[in-house]
């Protein structure tokens, strides 16, 4: 198959009478052949613009796009051989599914028999055989998405681009379609970029993820890298459900960060005392130590920041809400003197009531530290 590379890719929109809008500010990406890369970011971060530039639907302001080592910036969309499954499917309403699939082949002047056999072939692969004579209007969202995917794939594109492929599907269809997508992409081995604002989609499908914000890639890595060691506050906050707890504090000596007069947490990084930082602790990395010692406040536990979970010091907290969600609950806690609530994922057996006092401990190894000013991770 083909590898894809973006080199310092930029897009600037000129708006008359206003400063130009920089939608994409120089992104560099290398995709191995057959790799599925997730371009993840909030709406307006430039991910769709990047996708449209790769497809050739948008002019490139600067930089280069290499498909199989050759620059395609000057090549018009119709000659790029890039398949796109659009977010809203963009199926031609008056045509049947079969004609929708064959539309692109017909444009390339393929003989009718070849078109018909390739349409049948693709329909079989993607599970559309029974729907070939249906019109898009009568299909479910999941079926439309499969037709859109089949249409993008039938031309055997060098690169496949998926624009929010699951965003219009309901929960049940989402799961099956996601599994299907993964299977099809792995079977056919297309180099693929998946553009999405949905972290779950990116985490579950992508080999690597590029997290984007304001036209810049914030972090590039495997889903585990993105999740386990976020490069900055934005990535930490954007990836993870429920969202990471972000607690501002100041560094004290010997690996402590003070959050309030009575609460401090241990961290692994050694930083100069007095430095302003933000601690990031994922709800699933916090442990409840049970409700004994109710009423105790302040810092409890080992004086030294020990490396192990068992030795992690626990702090007292008051429960402000607990949502018992069968397989795991979500508890919202208040730490004394800390404005930000602390969200903790609890086990299914935990029963908590509003106002209960619990002790909670954070593993210093899993506590991320960010510079309060720049938002960059401190390691």
């Amino acid at each position: 198959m083909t590898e894809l590379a973006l080199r310092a890719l930029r897009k600037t929109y000129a708006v008359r009478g206003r400063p130009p809008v920089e939608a994409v500010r120089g992104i560099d990406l290398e995709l191995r052949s057959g790799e599925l890369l997730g371009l993840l970011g909030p709406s307006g971060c430039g991910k769709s613009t990047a996708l449209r530039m790769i497809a050739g639907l948008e002019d490139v302001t600067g930089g280069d796009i290499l498909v199989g080592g050759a620059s395609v910036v000057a090549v018009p969309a119709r000659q790029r051989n890039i398949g796109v499954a659009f977010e809203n499917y963009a199926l031609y309403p008056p045509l049947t599914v079969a004609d929708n699939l064959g539309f692109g082949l017909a444009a390339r002047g393929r003989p009718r028999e070849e078109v018909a056999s390739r349409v049948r072939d693709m329909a079989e692969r993607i599970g559309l055989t029974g729907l070939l004579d249906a019109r898009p209007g009568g299909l479910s969202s999941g079926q439309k998405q499969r037709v859109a995917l089949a249409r993008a794939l039938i031309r055997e594109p060098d690169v496949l681009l998926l624009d929010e492929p699951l965003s219009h599907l309901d929960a049940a269809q989402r799961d099956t379609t996601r599994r299907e997508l993964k299977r099809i992409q792995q079977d056919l081995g297309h180099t693929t970029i998946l553009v999405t604002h949905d972290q779950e989609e990116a985490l579950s499908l992508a080999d690597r993820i590029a997290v984007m914000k304001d036209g810049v890639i914030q972090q590039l890595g495997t889903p585990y890298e993105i999740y386990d060691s976020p490069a900055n506050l934005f990535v930490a906050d954007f990836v993870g459900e429920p969202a990471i707890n972000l607690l501002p504090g100041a560094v004290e000596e010997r690996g402590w960060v003070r959050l309030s007069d009575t609460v401090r947490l241990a961290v692994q990084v050694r930083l100069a005392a007095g430095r302003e930082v933000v601690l990031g602790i994922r709800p699933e990395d916090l442990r409840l130590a049970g409700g004994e010692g109710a009423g105790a406040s302040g810092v409890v536990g080992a004086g030294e920041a020990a490396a192990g979970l068992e030795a992690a010091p626990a702090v007292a907290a008051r429960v402000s809400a607990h949502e018992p969600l069968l397989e795991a609950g979500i508890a919202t806690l208040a730490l004394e003197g800390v404005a930000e609530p602390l969200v903790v994922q609890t086990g299914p057996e935990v029963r908590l009531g509003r106002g209960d006092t619990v002790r909670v401990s954070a593993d210093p190894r899993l506590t991320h530290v960010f510079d309060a000013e720049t938002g960059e991770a401190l390691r």
Partner: protein
Amino acid sequence: MKRRLLAIAADGALILYFVFALFPIAWMIILSLKPPNELFSTYFSFAPTLDSYRTVLGAGSDEGVPFPRFFVNSLVVSLGAVGLSLVIGLPAAYAAARWRFRGSENLMFTLLSFRFAPELTVIIPLFVLYQKLGLFDTYVGMIWVLQLVTLPLIVWIMRSYFSDLSPELEQAALLDGYTRKQAFFKVALPLVKPGIAAVSLLAFIFAWNNFVFPLILTSSEAQTVTVGALSFLGGDRPKYNLTAAAALVSVIPPLLLALTIQRYLVRGLSFGAVKS
């Protein structure tokens, strides 16, 4: 009780409006069926005759008004104007819907301004121009000047139809290997067919009913029914029966067109290309 009275009053009002709206048409029909000597009678007598229609439709009648020719002129000029407007206006509407280029809004507004400036304000310079250019009393001249009527309508209405189309449809076609032009003809245009039908009918009716342009810019060769129907009023005695018959005959083409296009008009209202 009160409610019933109200209902009766409402019905009464509706009937009154019904009579008000339809009376002129009924009068026209009666007028067109009367023999000339009963036109001005003060008592009611009605012995219907189709003589007026025979006179109006008989080419080169003794009245010296070649009405069938005006009828053909109207058809040629109106269809020509709508056809030309479609050829120019559809690409223009598409461009205006898809791209924001320098001055695009000004251009669209200028086009619209042709509709709200009364035709009479420009008719004298137009008359002089047409005389000088040899366009006076020609099909070309009439089709050209009717663009002021049909083009803004077609461009403005079709622009909103194209705007409602998801651009991704054409982009998908581009990626499928079509050129911009092919994407326009093969994807965008077929999807706005109901809109084209509706707007063509409207434009045709406006062109057909136009009075001022043929009144000033034609004399005999390219004169249309709207002006032609009035020529029966000239001479020593106004022949209202002939005018009425001519007017009724000239209602037929727009009416037929509206009836044939009707199903597209309904589809045009309930049409959705892309689920959003």
